[in-house]
């Protein structure tokens, strides 16, 4: 940054003040969501949107879990016929779709939406209306995708939906069309949300919060968001081309017409594998930020862990073909992807060693949140080692499409997503609701989930090694699979009981948990400096940050610099937020934030109408839907005087 730039001041110099009740009242009136149903629909408050994401995603987790239990009942013994093969196809496909696309990523978006401005010392996300749009479109796409399942036309070709099984010739119903269009719709939501996270990180941090002072979860979500923006176009394109092949007779994936079935796999996995990292890196960030609080020790190797997060994602772009080792691609080509898939273990291991060292050097307090965070380390190692094994081409040839891979993906997705997310709920629930979750029930919850999960999925590695293929609706007796499948089913029901305890604890604690106060865990980061639950404006004055642990500065005694939390910019002339510079967090501009509006919901309804019309090939309705989208966009972008930013000016 040039000296001239660094001397730039804000033209309308903001008032500097201390936190007073009068200021709080004034900000409350400016920022609060209007009461009533319309006010609820129009809210652009990041905390409201974050909670909606979290509730919706947990609801979908429960639905996906019920689907899994039905499948486990089908597989509890040989030659069972609870489900027909066709129903089983829809169950495993919808289960995968739900857990991977409708739960694992949106739940992280929910936590990040709620927590980002609180971590960063900001009043809101950079684009509050886009934030609302991302949630409404997510909800619409979930309903769109599930509409097919409810009427018996859910996806039935697995969550990665290979052609030619997905082509019209072999799959003539609406199943694949609903899946294809629903996924494109969901891609809009994810892209919009990702862009919002990226701009928020780079522009909406508190003064002094340079990028080397950001919590690790910010690095995780930032990295995942960049990846999403890069790879979602690939999968949206793939689904769009598939829809064209199915409905308009194009031949993108049809070899008879000069197309390439492998093109689907490339486009899908170019997205699919980075997506796996996108749904674990923010969760790893939760552990990196949560675990040290219960160890009463800063995270060991912060710089290395943050870098490892980024490095994992960079390498994650170069591993997609390890899902295609058995497709007959030339050996040398495979070796490049095998190498990247093996090397990616190095940055992953950096985080693991950092967590272990943090526990080792700290004084751990065994809360439920700590148990979930710490157990994730073990599950990560198991899932990581089985992934490392399949990075080897010859090993993968033996294991591909067996239950070993199913076990691996569940250790990754449950171990590195569900366990940290449940831990994060125990950790941040007091901030969100002002109430503590029940610790006694929490321990029952943890041990039931931990035992159930491992009873279900550890033996599944053996089931795979013995050769049981995935995605078969039943198996004959005498294959050696019976006992292992019985154990897995028992474990999965135990795990489900644990999840049920978790939901019960949330409801029970929300209604009558102990008062939490602003900082029940004595945390180091900014969210613990404000009341629980946070007021609509988050921070009465904008804090100024001097270290990475603003609330631990006296305890750590890391230097002379101290953060200022109770005196700062008041920004109380309307709905205002502060924009800061990307690298060093220097005050740059006062942003006028938008009021609550129905525009995001209107745009979502218009988009949903358009996609439903495309599904039915009702072109007159599609024309109406397109017009509605245009009208909603015009309404959204119509210039409003109150949204003009104040220009910056140069002072001497």
């Amino acid at each position, binding site marked *: *940054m040039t*000296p001239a730039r660094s001397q730039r001041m804000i033209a309308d110099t903001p008032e500097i003040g201390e936190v007073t009740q009068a200021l709080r009242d004034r900000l409350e009136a400016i920022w609060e969501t209007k009461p009533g149903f319309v006010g609820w629909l129009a809210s652009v408050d990041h905390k409201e949107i974050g909670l909606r994401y979290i509730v919706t995603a947990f609801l979908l987790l429960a639905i996906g879990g019920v689907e899994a239990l039905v499948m486990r009942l089908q597989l509890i013994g040989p030659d069972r016929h609870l489900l027909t093969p066709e129903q089983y196809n829809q169950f495993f496909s919808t289960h995968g779709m739900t857990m991977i696309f409708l739960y694992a990523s949106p739940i992280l978006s929910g936590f990040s939406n709620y927590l980002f401005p609180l971590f960063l010392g900001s009043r809101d996300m950079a684009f509050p209306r886009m934030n609302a749009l991302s949630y409404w479109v997510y909800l619409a796409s979930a309903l769109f995708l599930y509409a097919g399942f409810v009427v018996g036309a859910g996806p039935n070709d697995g969550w990665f939906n290979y052609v030619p099984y997905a082509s019209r010739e072999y799959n003539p119903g609406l199943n694949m069309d609903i899946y294809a269009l629903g996924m494109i719709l969901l891609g809009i939501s994810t892209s919009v949300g990702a862009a919002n996270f990226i701009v928020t990180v780079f522009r909406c941090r508190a003064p*002094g919060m*340079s*990028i*080397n*002072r950001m919590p690790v979860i910010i690095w995780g979500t930032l990295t995942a968001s960049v990846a999403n923006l890069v790879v979602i176009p690939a999968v949206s394109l793939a689904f769009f081309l598939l829809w064209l092949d199915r409905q308009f007779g194009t031949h993108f994936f049809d070899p008879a017409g000069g197309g390439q079935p492998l093109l689907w796999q490339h486009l899908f996995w170019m997205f699919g594998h980075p997506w796996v990292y996108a749904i674990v890196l923010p969760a790893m960030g939760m552990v990196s930020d949560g675990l040290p609080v219960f160890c009463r020790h*800063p995270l*060991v*190797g*912060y*710089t*290395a862990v*943050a*870098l490892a997060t*980024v*490095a994992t994602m*960079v*390498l994650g*772009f*170069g591993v997609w*073909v390890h899902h295609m080792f058995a497709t*007959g*691609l*030339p*050996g*040398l*080509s*495979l*070796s*490049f*992807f*095998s*190498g*990247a898939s093996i*090397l990616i273990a*190095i940055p992953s291991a950096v985080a693991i060693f950092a967590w272990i060292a943090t526990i080792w050097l700290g004084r751990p307090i065994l809360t439920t949140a700590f148990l979930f965070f710490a157990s994730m380390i073990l599950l990560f190692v198991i899932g990581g080692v089985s992934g490392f094994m399949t990075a080897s081409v010859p090993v993968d040839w033996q294991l591909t499409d067996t239950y070993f891979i199913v076990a691996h993906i569940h250790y990754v997705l449950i171990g590195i997503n569900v366990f940290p997310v449940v831990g994060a709920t125990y950790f941040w629930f007091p901030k969100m609701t002002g109430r503590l979750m029940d610790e006694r029930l929490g321990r029952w919850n943890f041990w039931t989930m931990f035992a159930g999960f491992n009873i279900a999925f550890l033996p599944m590695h053996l089931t795979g090694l013995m050769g049981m293929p995935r995605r078969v609706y039943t198996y004959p007796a005498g294959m050696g699979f019976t006992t292992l499948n019985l154990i897995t089913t028992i474990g999965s029901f135990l795990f489900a009981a644990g999840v049920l305890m978790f939901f019960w604890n949330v409801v029970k604690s929300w209604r009558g948990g102990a008062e939490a106060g602003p900082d029940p865990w004595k945390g180091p980061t900014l969210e613990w400096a404000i009341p629980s639950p946070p007021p609509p404006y988050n921070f009465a004055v904008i804090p100024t940050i*001097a270290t*990475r642990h603003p609330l631990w500065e006296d305890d750590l005694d*890391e*230097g*002379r*610099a101290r953060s200022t939390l109770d005196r700062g910019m008041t920004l109380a002339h309307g709905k205002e937020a502060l924009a800061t510079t990307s*690298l*060093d*967090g220097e005050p740059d501009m006062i942003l006028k934030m938008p009021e609550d509006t129905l525009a995001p919901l209107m745009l979502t309804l218009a988009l949903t109408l358009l996609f439903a019309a495309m599904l039915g090939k009702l072109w007159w309705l599609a024309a109406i839907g397109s017009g509605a989208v245009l009208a909603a966009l015009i309404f959204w972008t119509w210039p409003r005087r109150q949204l003009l930013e104040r220009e910056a000016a140069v002072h001497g």
Partner: protein
Amino acid sequence: MSTHPAPHRHRTSLWELGFALTGGCIAWGVQFCASFAVASLACFDAGERSHQAERHAQPVILWITIACLLVALAATGVSWLVWRRTREEAEGGHRELLEKGGGRTRFLSLWGLLLGLGSALTILANLIGLLLVPPCAG
């Protein structure tokens, strides 16, 4: 010690720091994608799968690898130079930096150093495949 998070920011430029941070990763990405494309194409003769690679494929991959390796090493070198100029930016040496991340400019220069070096090693790892794996096996 200054309270600014990056008191030594003027000792480098955004371009220099940008190259230091991204040069290695971009070099690896180019090497990876180009080698994959060349290695795959070499096993197809007029659209038909062949098990004998075209002769020119391996030298082309080798040259791509060498060029990209040099870029990654250059990014590492630039990172080293920036690190030398900014390593006193905050209290403590490199161990303090690894633990606490103090000093934004030196934080990024250390990232550049590790990313550049890591990228160079990853590029070199791909050479193992070039030397040991039959190009069109499988």
